[in-house]
């Protein structure tokens, strides 16, 4: 894949933490527009760090991360929120706000982006409908099951129609039926042209979507497999 056509491009990226922990060691990876990339590997391989670097939540210790041609490490702090609006983030721990209803949780990215309330409400309900949670829009996160919370997190990630969805272990801690639902949802989102990067230790669950697979081990990229 040509470097200059990549939506996300990592080149020689390293990420070291205090105490000598090397989460990533010289990772290079290109993600093109419309790609579906599954990053797999054992716990501690650096999958989450890779996604955090792509979303500019962290900065690389060495190497460069380009998103839409912008060098994330060189961005001024003020520019980072605007870059992040290109992403839909699905967190392993959901990160739903416990004191807000499901509706308000999903509406948060639209509020941040300054959407007009009526249009925001329409989009929120459409997203909740897509993930099958429209009937629970008034529920508080604590009242949702693990699977519902994960679906709510996906609804929040896609509600503003981002160019890229980064999902960190979206099927972790879910039983097979729920996991299958989540995989189908992400597959449907990819089907309408979105770029997805999914970090998971459960590659088999995503195999039906025919993703490009990247294997990470101890901070290094193993052989890439294109299905």
């Amino acid at each position, binding site marked *: 894949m040509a470097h200059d056509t990549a939506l996300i491009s990592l080149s020689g990226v390293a990420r070291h933490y205090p105490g000598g922990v090397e989460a990533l060691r010289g990772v290079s990876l290109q993600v093109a527009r419309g790609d579906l990339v599954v990053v797999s590997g054992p716990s501690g391989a650096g999958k989450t760090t890779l996604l955090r670097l792509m979303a*500019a939540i962290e900065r690389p210790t060495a190497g460069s991360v380009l998103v839409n041609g912008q060098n994330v490490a060189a*961005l001024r702090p003020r520019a980072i*929120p605007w870059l*992040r609006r290109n992403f839909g*983030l699905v967190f392993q721990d959901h*990160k739903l706000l416990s*004191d*807000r209803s499901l509706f308000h949780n999903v509406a*948060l990215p639209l509020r941040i982006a300054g959407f007009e309330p009526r249009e925001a409400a329409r989009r929120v309900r459409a997203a909740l409908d897509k993930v099958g949670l429209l009937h629970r829009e008034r529920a508080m996160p604590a009242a949702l099951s693990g699977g519902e919370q994960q679906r709510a997190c996906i609804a929040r990630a896609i509600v503003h129609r981002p160019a890229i969805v980064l999902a960190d272990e979206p099927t972790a801690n879910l039983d097979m039926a729920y996991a299958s639902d989540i995989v189908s949802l992400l597959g449907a989102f990819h089907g309408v042209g979105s770029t997805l990067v999914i970090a998971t230790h459960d590659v088999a669950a995503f195999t039906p979507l025919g993703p490009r697979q990247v294997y990470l081990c101890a901070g290094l990229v193993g052989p890439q497999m294109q299905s």
Partner: protein
Amino acid sequence: MKTWLREHRLALHEALGRLASQSVGFALTVLVIGIAAALPLGLRLLTGAVDVLDRGPVATAQLTVFATVDAAPPVVQALGERLGRHPAAAGVRFVSRDQALAALHRDAGLAQLMEDLGSNPLPDAWIVTARGGDAAGLETLRDEVSGWAGVDQVLLDADRARTLRALAGGLRQTARLLGALLGVALVAVCFSTVRLQVLTQREEIEVAKLIGATDAFIRRPYLYFGTLQGLVSGLVAFGVVAGGSESLRHALAPAELGAVAVLDALAPDLASLWLSVGVGGVLGWLGAWLSVSEHLRRTSPGG
């Protein structure tokens, strides 16, 4: 512009929601700040009242020249004209012995005593104001006038003016110092109350940042909260001072300090209202801004 206004409206709405959810705590906080802030505001008014006294007839550097009790009217008239022409005198007000007696009857309740005396024991007098409030010039004038024929006694009233000026200066300094100290205290209180909110909302702040919220977006509701806290504290301070000054005016009214202006100066005016509310609002905003900015700075590893 429409989006900007909508964002501010939503932030204000959110701040009001937080305020409503902790109304008792909010009320107690603004009460504490308001009562504390009333002190410098009250001192400011008191300084204004002392200034009025200082400028007024009670305290203006002036001489009181008494004619001898038996001075004949032509002598009295000549003395008056001579005083009026003197270059050190800015103004001369004649108080005849009859006027003085009438004032004594009216103001001091000495009517019976005066009637028992039979004749008017009071002399004719002149109140001489110094040109440009020059007390030193008046002292020279006193020494000069004391030697004039027909003059019994000359009293210089500059010491009280000096005391009042010193008092006004001291009050002004105290008000400034207290105002500055309490301003810092208000910033600190707002910093702490907003910090508590930030800590309880840190999960929301973290998520909002992750999904693209700017620092301005995160800060906005807290800034509105801090500003509201400062504004309401300013209003409380104004209310405390207004209530206090009203009771003080009632207490002082019978004393007849000699000028209605003095009592008027004790009443907080519109400028005092704007000052207390405006300064309160700005300091509340500042406390909130410092608080949220400090949190954002500490929690922004990736920006």
